[in-house]
């Protein structure tokens, strides 16, 4: 019998419809993979086998009657940032100890109403703050990829490291993730998977633990461009509970897959060529350009002069919003409480013990830049720079560019507990240098696996699109996938 966990969502959708196997068989196959692998990879922080089997049985009943939604019977993993009713929802933070919401996020509600099956909750950086999944209260997630001939543990990227590892190691068919500065695309690139951050406003943020509200967006991580299109179609919706969700029809993304890119104008921004960037990243980029040219796209050099300011502006805007959003963790309404001699000391003790170092760092930066006398010098200036970053993109679109091609990350996955990266927080932040511009401008961006480096580790290319034009990203992304092929880590776990 074929290994059901090796199927794509598109394959499994057909197989389930044809009754080649049941959703219960599919679900059990993933549950047994999780059981065998999770002690080593640490991708799941909570597995929900009973719930998964109940949902799978309900899907099988619908499928038997020839009914069912777009994701009927498909087993998925859910990032711990999404509220799931009665199930572990702690943003992988100590401060949300034992929190189980009485409500369900809009994105997961959409997935369940389309028939998807929940396998459990996925590990992540605490409050989605990190680029290596090493800030989780539940420990590091390990990348299923290793360098050729090495047994060193590598990070899966972050913050959606659990989502990326779970997909790459076949512990779910697809996963939900979120992206504030690159948290979907960077881990996807580090694990040879596809990840898309849609346009700000495409998915409802209701029921997703807030980090930086003007930047946060949900999106999927999956094996193929087509699978990510299937998942995003279900996740996206306009929602009265999130006033920033936008009332624009969600197109049938799958319909554009396989469509020719002939005549599409692809912009190549010179400013993404960094000093000291590894030659392999530049080579990968050139390969991507050649593939798209061969497919009939028109390649055009563009200039985006404010690119280098996106990351410093982000490290004002994101911590400022985080310091405000995280004010709610006070030891009163939910989660951890550490007593003190009075209420203020109780707050201070709770937040000192409940937050990890990276979260504290960002809350303090955010509090500082918003404090009296500093607002104009930091926050207001950063928001003005943000206007200029968006203007760079607007100019490209006005000049007829349909999508922009860049590398997804400045390097391949690095080692767990890398001393240099841990000694200097700014070095770790540089991981997001190519992805963060997209959040600052609210645009859609997809990372597609494009090759392996000299050590055999996956690398990704990023495509950036016009607002609400995720469809073009899927269309062009498929061309890259067709040219590059797919990448599977060699199994050493489980």
């Amino acid at each position, binding site marked *: 019998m074929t290994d059901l966990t090796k199927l794509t969502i598109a394959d499994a959708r057909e197989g389930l419809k044809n009754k080649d196997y049941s959703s219960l068989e599919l679900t059990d196959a993933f549950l047994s993979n999780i059981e065998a692998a999770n002690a080593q990879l640490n991708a799941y922080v909570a597995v929900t086998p009973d719930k998964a089997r109940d949902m799978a049985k309900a899907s099988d009943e619908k499928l038997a009657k020839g009914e069912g939604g777009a994701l009927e019977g498909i087993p998925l993993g859910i990032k711990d940032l999404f509220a799931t009713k009665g199930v572990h929802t702690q943003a992988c933070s100590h401060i949300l100890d*034992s*929190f*189980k919401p*009485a*409500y369900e996020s809009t994105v997961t509600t959409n997935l369940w109403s389309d028939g998807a099956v929940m396998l459990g909750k996925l590990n992540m950086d605490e409050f989605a703050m990190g680029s290596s999944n090493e800030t989780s209260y539940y420990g590091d997630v390990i990348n299923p990829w290793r360098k050729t001939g090495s047994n060193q543990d590598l990070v899966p990227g972050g913050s959606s490291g659990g989502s990326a590892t779970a997909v790459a190691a076949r512990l779910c068919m697809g996963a939900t993730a979120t992206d504030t500065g690159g948290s979907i695309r960077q881990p996807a690139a580090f694990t040879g998977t596809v990840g898309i951050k849609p*346009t700000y*406003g495409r998915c409802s943020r209701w029921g997703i633990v807030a980090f930086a509200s*003007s930047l946060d967006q949900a999106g999927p991580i999956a094996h193929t461009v087509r699978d990510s299109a299937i998942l995003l179609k279900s996740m996206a919706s306009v929602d*009265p509970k999130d006033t*920033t969700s*936008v009332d624009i029809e969600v197109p049938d993304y799958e319909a554009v897959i396989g469509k020719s890119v002939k005549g599409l104008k692809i912009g190549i921004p010179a400013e993404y060529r960094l000093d000291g960037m590894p030659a392999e990243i530049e080579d990968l980029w050139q390969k991507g350009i050649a593939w798209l040219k061969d497919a009939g796209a028109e390649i055009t050099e563009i200039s985006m002069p404010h690119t280098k*300011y996106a990351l*410093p*502006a982000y*490290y*004002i805007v994101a911590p400022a919003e985080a*310091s405000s959003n995280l004010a709610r963790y*006070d*030891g*009163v*309404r*939910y*989660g*951890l*409480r550490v*007593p*003190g001699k*009075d*209420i*203020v000391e*109780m707050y*201070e*003790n709770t*937040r*000192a013990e409940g*937050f990890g170092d990276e979260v*504290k*760092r960002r*809350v*303090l*930066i955010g*509090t*500082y830049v918003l*404090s009296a006398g500093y607002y104009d*010098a*930091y926050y*207001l*200036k*950063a928001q*003005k*720079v*943000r*206007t*200029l970053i*968006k203007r760079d993109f607007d100019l490209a679109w006005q000049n007829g560019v349909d999508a922009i091609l860049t590398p997804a990350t400045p390097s391949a996955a690095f080692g767990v507990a890398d001393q240099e990266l841990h000694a200097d*927080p*700014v070095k770790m932040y540089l991981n997001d240098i190519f992805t963060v511009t997209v959040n600052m*401008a*609210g645009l859609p961006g997809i990372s597609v696996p494009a090759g392996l480096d000299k050590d055999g580790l996956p690398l990704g290319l990023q495509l950036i699109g016009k*607002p609400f034009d995720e469809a073009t990203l899927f269309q062009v992304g498929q061309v890259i996938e067709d040219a590059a092929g797919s990448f599977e880590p060699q199994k050493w776990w489980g």
Partner: protein
Amino acid sequence: MSVDTETVKRVARLARIKVSEDDATRMTGELNAILGFVEQLDEVNIDGVEPMTSVVEQTMKKRVDGITDGNKAGDITLNAPASEDNFFMVPKVVE
């Protein structure tokens, strides 16, 4: 701009996070590294540039000012570390 350890302690107090002397010293260095990094923004000419308030141009959606939800005090206090009769319990704040 850079911060000293006293400023870090003051900011930590504002953020309601208890920090030890050692924490404050370590964090001073880390925060200064970040503040040094964001100083690059001083190179950008922002004269006459409007600050971004929303990435998507849309009028703020409004809804009817009506009651659409409620009567779930039990749900709201469900996850509280201490509660009684659907009230949150906190240390005494008024003498």
